[in-house]
């Protein structure tokens, strides 16, 4: 055979290998094919192609492997068990940038499924190779490496610590300053994943000077970038007062309120999360946010959105109101109570309702003015309904009861308390009656109203054990009225009257 014929055999073989690997890579983009591919044993076929002579075949094989591992964790396990990772890590250091991108993609696809797989990736020494890739010039390689590091750090504190110890943080902060938006997104997301586990990690992130760069990107037009930036800032701020103060000192504050009107829903949610993490620490921080008009902006946000994304806003209002009565009055004055009542009636999820109920309780528990503002919105019967409803979860019932009790203990607005006399169970009823017994002795108009609205009649019908607090309150209410009135309204009075009529002998 001539030389050309011999070489043709080799060329054919190379062509068929290229075609195989490209087709597999394309098929792996569709989820329905992956089962078939897996059953056909694609892993064992792709493994030797990773060591192929031709660079394009290597890269495409790595890409195909990455797409397969991305799909589910069995395939990722197979990648780990097939000892492919050390080869990839070695080639991360040596090969050209297309291969590096593909290798980083495989590492990311394996690491994202579970902590055990991420630990396996770390054990192969991938972290050092990935950190070295972060120093590359090509932004695509940096993005892939940063993404892989972010997915590794996401699972738990131990893995985040490993990522930090590999020295990834300064490079991630440098990536934040690059002009490519995709790279910035990935860097912000990775920083957010590292900082979220513990205060020490958040402090390490802050020490690399990340906050200033994140703060600069707050008004960037790209929505996905803003999501990640706000998520990172809120993960940093949530751990302690000092970290929250550092975030506030970066002067994000009035500018961030503009992002509350962003068309992207998750940007708004993350902004509210950031505000919640800041306000929950101290009254001074809450005061600062209230003074910049943050509360009004959040209340408007609650009006515009629906569903689970309302939760951070509601919790923020609750935290602000919990600190002091001034701040609670500030929330009330900014029209918070009608909005929260709307949330309570519109939402069906129990955890969102529990949060709303808690926030309302915090608003109403401070003084009589606050309790009056909350009760006038018609909140109390709704709280009672939630407490009594058997469909509500236990958490919701407990919170509803606490909120109800704390508002009732300060409420002196009697028209709002009256509906509660009719439906409440005895442990709530004693508080309601107690409040009546505190207010009625001093206010004659209220006494008159109490009689005409049928409240006195209802109070007489309540059965209470003698000597209990409820009985004492009932007695003190009865003492406010002349005896004939009390007797008139006591149950069975009509029968006694009729008996007297029967017994009467006309003269």
């Amino acid at each position: 055979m001539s030389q050309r014929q011999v070489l043709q055999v080799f060329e054919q073989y190379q062509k068929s290998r290229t075609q195989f690997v490209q087709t597999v890579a394309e098929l792996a983009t569709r989820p329905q094919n992956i089962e078939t591919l897996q059953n056909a044993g694609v892993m064992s076929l792709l493994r030797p192609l990773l060591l192929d002579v031709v660079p394009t075949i290597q890269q495409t094989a790595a890409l195909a492997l990455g797409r397969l591992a991305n799909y589910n964790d069995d395939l990722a396990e197979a990648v780990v068990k097939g000892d492919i990772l050390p080869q990839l890590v070695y080639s991360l250091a040596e090969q050209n940038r297309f291969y590096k991108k593909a290798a980083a993609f495989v590492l990311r696809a394996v690491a994202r499924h579970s902590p055990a797989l991420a630990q396996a990736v770390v054990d192969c020494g991938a972290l050092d190779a990935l950190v070295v890739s972060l120093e590359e010039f090509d932004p695509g390689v940096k993005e892939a490496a940063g993404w892989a590091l972010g997915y590794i750090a996401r699972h738990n504190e131990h893995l985040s610590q490993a990522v930090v110890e590999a020295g990834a943080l300064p490079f991630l902060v440098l990536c934040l300053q690059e002009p490519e938006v995709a790279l910035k997104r990935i860097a912000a997301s990775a920083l957010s994943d590292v900082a979220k586990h513990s205060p020490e990690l958040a402090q390490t992130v802050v020490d690399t000077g990340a906050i200033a760069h994140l703060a600069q990107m707050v008004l960037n037009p790209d929505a996905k970038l803003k999501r990640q930036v706000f998520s990172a800032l809120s993960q940093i701020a949530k751990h302690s007062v000092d970290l929250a103060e550092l975030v506030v000192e970066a002067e994000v504050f009035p500018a961030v309120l503009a992002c509350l009107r962003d068309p992207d829903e998750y940007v708004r949610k993350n902004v509210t999360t950031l505000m919640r993490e800041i306000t929950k620490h101290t009254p001074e921080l809450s005061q600062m946010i209230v003074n910049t008009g943050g509360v009004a902006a959040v209340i408007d946000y609650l009006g515009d959105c629906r569903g689970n994304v309302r939760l951070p806003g509601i919790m923020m209002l609750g935290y602000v109101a919990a600190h002091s009565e001034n701040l609670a009055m500030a929330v009330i004055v900014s029209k918070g109570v009608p909005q929260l009542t709307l949330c309570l009636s519109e939402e069906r999820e129990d955890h969102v309702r529990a949060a709303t109920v808690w926030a309302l309780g915090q608003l109403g528990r401070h003084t009589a003015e606050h309790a009056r503002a909350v009760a006038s919105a018609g909140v109390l019967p709704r709280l009672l309904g939630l407490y009594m409803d058997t469909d509500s979860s236990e958490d919701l019932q407990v919170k509803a009861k606490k909120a109800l009790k704390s508002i009732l203990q300060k409420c002196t607005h009697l028209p709002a308390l009256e509906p509660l006399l009719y439906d409440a169970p005895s442990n709530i009823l004693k508080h309601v009656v107690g409040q009546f017994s505190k207010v009625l002795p001093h206010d004659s108009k209220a006494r008159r109203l109490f009689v005409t609205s049928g409240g006195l009649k209802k109070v007489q019908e309540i059965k209470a054990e003698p000597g209990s607090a409820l009985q004492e309150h009932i007695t003190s209410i009865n003492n406010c009225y002349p005896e004939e009135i009390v007797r008139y309204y006591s149950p069975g009075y009509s029968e006694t009257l009729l008996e007297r009529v029967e017994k009467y002998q006309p003269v």
Partner: protein
Amino acid sequence: MARFVRLENKIERIKEEFFIRNRIAEENRPGENRAAIQIQSWFRGCQVRAYLSHLDKHATIIQKTWRGFQARAHFRQMVKAACFIMKMNFYNEMAVRVQRRWRGFYTRKYVHNFYARKRYLEGLMRTNELVRRELGEFAEYQQREREHVAMEREEQENTIQAERLHHLLSTQQRPGVFNSPFRPAPDKMELRLRRAKPRPSRSSPRNRGPLLGSTGTGPFRDPAEVWQQRVCVTEPTLRVQTSPRDLERAQEELHREEWRNRLVDRPFQPFSKAWKDRKYERTVHSTSCFLPLAYGTKHFREERPEQLHGKKPFKTVFTTCHVFDKFGRLYSNAGKIV
């Protein structure tokens, strides 16, 4: 004597009378005794009563005076006490007024200033209004911007579409698809078609201008011309242009330059044990290819002055440099220790 006779007649009578009178007296004696006793007791009673009333009067006088004295003393005490209480009440009243003012001032200033709180809440409401209005305006502005951008993009796409469909322009004879005669005015697409310049499709080869030096006679033209017209010069992207080894080459270049510019290749090691096995390096002046020179160890210049022939000796002391003259003396006297 007549008186004596008369008297003798009376003596018998007198004796009888004496006994009668004695008997009567004896008979009257208890009665009289009783009467006398009564009179005496009455009189004694009067005496005693007079004495008692006398005593009474005096006792009354004494008691009256004493009681008056006691009462007045007691009254004086009462007046003093009342006066004291009145004064104390007055002082208390005044103190309460002062304290009331002070407490009001203190609470309003340091503890809880109701009006400040009221002003704060009003200011907060105004700020909220402002923030809400501004956010609304900002959201509207952004919305308009986005719509504007979207509209421009759409217009751009439509223009490109019009350029591709330029052949659907209506002519004098025949109205085009977009210019139906039944419409009152031509469609917007028609207007775009009128404005658009025909766009060459991508598959046609680039026209390089009039053919240069073509004979036009036969199908076989000069190969050089054909190549010039047909071959499109590739303009590879930066990605394709950069060789995969660029980075390594740049790194090697940097490495070489650093090695070139470095004077001392041996890394600095500050610990003494690192220099343990170091070989002693002689100075340049005393080394030669064969043996170390003896100058500097065995003899010096000054030892053989006759060889010097009037050469000037080396200077051992240099001129001072004034760098450290002001050291420590610029700002404080503490530097004079130096």
